[in-house]
């Protein structure tokens, strides 16, 4: 089955040869990324900031579902926790926005780890069920009167856009973009290191051969919970940055459709692919705009069809398709007879 | 004598590993043929390949019709019954229900009752336990049930996988006696996989010896009994 092979396609240690081409490519990408806010309109900068935010969230989910094989349908809940943590800290406690990021990361790490402990003892389907329920219940929990003193209840919380630091020749939107970009780069580098090293190999071992992994001394439950926590941390940080960018948090923004969007980002970009995450983020940020012009329901119908189609046609998402295309180009190139 | 089942160049695969290599064998109509070999030789895999339960290539013909690549449920409907290793009984169903399911492919439901009674005649203990859950039966009783279930479909060819495994000798004797009787009275062809070489050679007309997925020896059972290599490795003298 195409899907099965796709999952196995993720190599244990991808030998990254530091081609000059690769380094130049990444640097070029960085230059473009940094230059973007200065050439794009204000609204586009905002959209790009959100793209980066989603990239971090999708990266978190991908580490869990793509690499570790644990199905989470409820990562929107952690996004919400991150967003509300930042909102509450900034508006009720006057904490500076940059401090709220690590705090919400830590909060989500703990909550994720605790949620993971019982849920991950069981097989994938039960985790999917539990996280589905979590996502469905999140807006209701956020609206609850008991905590509305903190959360603002149904009306939510408004956040004031932070000012750029003195002296820098950027406006608030551009600063926010660059701030987010910096954090995104850090998170990506950390993830890349994590996954290439022993931890990444352990995750793949647990995913593909759990019994062998346990026999070799990997403490599976603890490890899975830890991975869940880390994945939640990523999504929580994304939520914080997202809240600052949107300047508003409210319960209904964090419904199950958010969790499904994140999952879609993972699937479309490619399970287990880090570069694919960027594509997934671009996808879920910009496609609803286009599709939404047709009708309010259209984006979701498209998403649904795409989810199904991906499992058949492109189980490893864009990253897989890109890899296949590159491979066939290379093969075609080699087919030319030597002079 | 015509061949009811014929296999040539049969290969079987678990994943990408080839476990049966270019097997060629046949089961004559009305005969009992034994497939022998040590643990892991590929005997069970051969039966599963015939039934389409494992990926295979090559040619398998049943009564002249090629059956390679067909779905298990279609192959079975052609007149083959398979009693798998581990018996495959429907554990939470009663003895009667198991037999009823065995007759699933039969068009003539009216005959079913008399068939059930006939089988209860062969195995009276099953009649006693007819309303019991199959999972509560002993090993020997489950083997009788599995065999009966297979016979309910009135197959032309019966595939039996290790019927003696884990059973007391007296029970094994009983089962083999019934098999001999069914073969003699109804002319049912049997392909028997057995680790107990002595018993198998005693019951069968013809035998094949498998070693690590390949055919090592074949011939009439009486002769194989006297064959040097068989005696040394499998009969112990």
């Amino acid at each position, binding site marked *: 089955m195409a899907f*099965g092979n796709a999952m196995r396609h993720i190599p244990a240690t991808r030998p990254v040869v530091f081609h000059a081409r690769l380094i130049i490519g990444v640097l070029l990408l960085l230059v473009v990324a940094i230059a973007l806010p200065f050439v794009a309109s204000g609204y586009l900068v905002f959209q790009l900031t959100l793209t980066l935010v989603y990239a971090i969230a999708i990266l978190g989910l991908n580490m869990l579902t793509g690499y570790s094989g644990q199905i989470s349908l409820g990562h929107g809940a952690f996004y919400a926790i991150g967003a509300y943590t930042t909102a509450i800290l900034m508006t009720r406690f006057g904490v500076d926005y940059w401090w709220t990021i690590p705090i919400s990361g830590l909060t989500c790490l703990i909550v994720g780890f605790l949620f993971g402990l019982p849920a991950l003892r069981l097989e994938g389907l039960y985790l999917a069920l539990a996280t589905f329920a979590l996502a469905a219940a999140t807006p209701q929990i956020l609206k609850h009167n008991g905590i509305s003193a903190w959360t603002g209840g149904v009306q939510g919380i408004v956040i004031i856009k932070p000012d750029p630091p003195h002296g820098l020749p950027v406006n608030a939107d551009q600063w926010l973009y660059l701030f987010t970009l910096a954090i995104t780069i850090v998170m990506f580098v950390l993830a890349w290191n994590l996954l290439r090293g022993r931890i990444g190999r352990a995750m793949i071992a647990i995913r593909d051969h759990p019994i062998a992994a346990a026999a070799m001394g990997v403490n599976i439950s603890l490890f899975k919970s830890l991975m869940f926590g880390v994945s939640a941390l990523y999504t929580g940080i994304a939520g914080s940055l997202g809240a600052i960018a949107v300047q508003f948090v409210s319960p209904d923004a964090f419904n199950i459709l958010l969790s499904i969007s994140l999952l879609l980002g993972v699937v479309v970009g490619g399970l287990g692919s880090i570069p694919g995450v960027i594509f997934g983020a671009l996808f879920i940020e910009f496609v609803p705009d286009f599709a939404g012009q047709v009708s*309010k329901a259209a984006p979701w*119908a498209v998403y*649904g069809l795409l989810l*199904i189609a991906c*499992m058949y046609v492109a189980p490893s998402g864009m990253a897989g398709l890109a890899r296949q295309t590159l491979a066939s180009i290379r093969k075609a190139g080699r087919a030319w007879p030597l002079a | 004598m015509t061949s009811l089942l014929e296999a040539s160049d049969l290969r079987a695969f678990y994943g990408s590993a080839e476990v049966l290599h270019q097997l060629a064998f046949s089961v004559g109509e009305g005969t009992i043929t034994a497939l022998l070999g040590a643990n892991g030789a590929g005997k069970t895999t051969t039966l599963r390949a015939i039934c389409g339960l494992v990926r295979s290539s090559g040619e398998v013909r049943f009564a002249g019709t090629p059956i390679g690549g067909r779905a298990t449920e279609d192959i079975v409907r052609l007149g083959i019954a398979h009693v798998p290793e581990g018996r495959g009984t429907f*554990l939470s169903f009663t003895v009667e229900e198991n037999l009823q399911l065995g007759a699933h492919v039969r068009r003539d439901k009216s005959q079913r009752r008399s068939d059930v009674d006939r089988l209860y005649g062969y195995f009276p203990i099953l009649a006693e336990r007819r309303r019991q859950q199959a999972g509560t039966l002993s090993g020997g009783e489950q083997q009788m049930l599995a065999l009966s279930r297979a016979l309910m479909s009135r197959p032309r060819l019966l595939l039996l996988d290790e019927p003696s495994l884990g059973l007391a000798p007296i029970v094994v004797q009983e089962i083999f006696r019934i098999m001999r009787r069914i073969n003699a009275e109804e002319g049912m062809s049997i392909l028997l996989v057995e680790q107990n070489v002595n018993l198998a050679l005693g019951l069968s007309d013809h035998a094949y010896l498998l070693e690590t997925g390949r055919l090592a020896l074949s011939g009439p059972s009486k002769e194989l009994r006297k064959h040097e290599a068989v005696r040394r490795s499998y009969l112990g003298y």
Partner: protein
Amino acid sequence: MNGLLHQVFSGLATGGIYASLALALVMIYRATELVNFAQGEMAMFSTYLAWSMINAGLPYWPAFLLTIGVSFLAAAVIQLAIIRPLANAPILASVIVFIGLLLVFNSIAGWIFSYTIKTFPSPFPSEPLWANSYISTHEVGAIGVTLALLAILFAFFRWTELGLTMRAAAENPVSSRLVGIRVARMVALGWGLAAALGAVAGMMVAPIIFLDPNMMSGVLLYAFAAALLGGIDNPWGAVLGGFSLGIVENLLGAYLIGTELKMTVALAIIILVLVVKPSGVFGRTVLTRV
């Protein structure tokens, strides 16, 4: 006492609906070891189909039966065409497809029928039976329909040949193949029956909570909780779980925590079951074979 009885009775009515949907989930789980996350949205879509038929002038009961038939067929086709090919792929693939189906049904319902809330007729008279103040006639009717359906299904599985065959295919697909049972068809039939159950659940609940594309999300969550509580592979457990949760939901809502935390209650129950006894009250223990 008045209020308590009322809560219990109407809890039984919604409980019956949870029971139907939970049973649908359990049936599919037993046959395929998968949970159909799209069951609620499919039921909602069936209800909209019924609504369209009734709106077009068809009397209630013919529309009811026609909806069941169409839902049955559509579900069987979906199973064969979209779900079955992924049977050997990792569970993640099937789960993603279920989510995809969820989105498709939800959004197409919204597209075709709009998101404005609609009323759905009840086939039962609106005057309460014997002028009682505990339970509406529709609620009695809903309980009755649910019980009738469950009885029909029980009889079907227990006493018919096809029912026996379907049970066998669910319990042991390999042995079933060996007796010639076309397992793929049986699974498709199972999906059809599950969809039929869902359609009835939708049509019974719509007069109470009104028809809108998102009406089944809460019901589905409670159905999940009921199925898990009873044991995800146990149909009796699902039914018992469904009725119990209907009552529990009402009592908790009326006397303890108010009506705004219904989903949260379902979540709490799901987590509780998974932590304390994942196999549910009546299910077989979830052992992963080493």
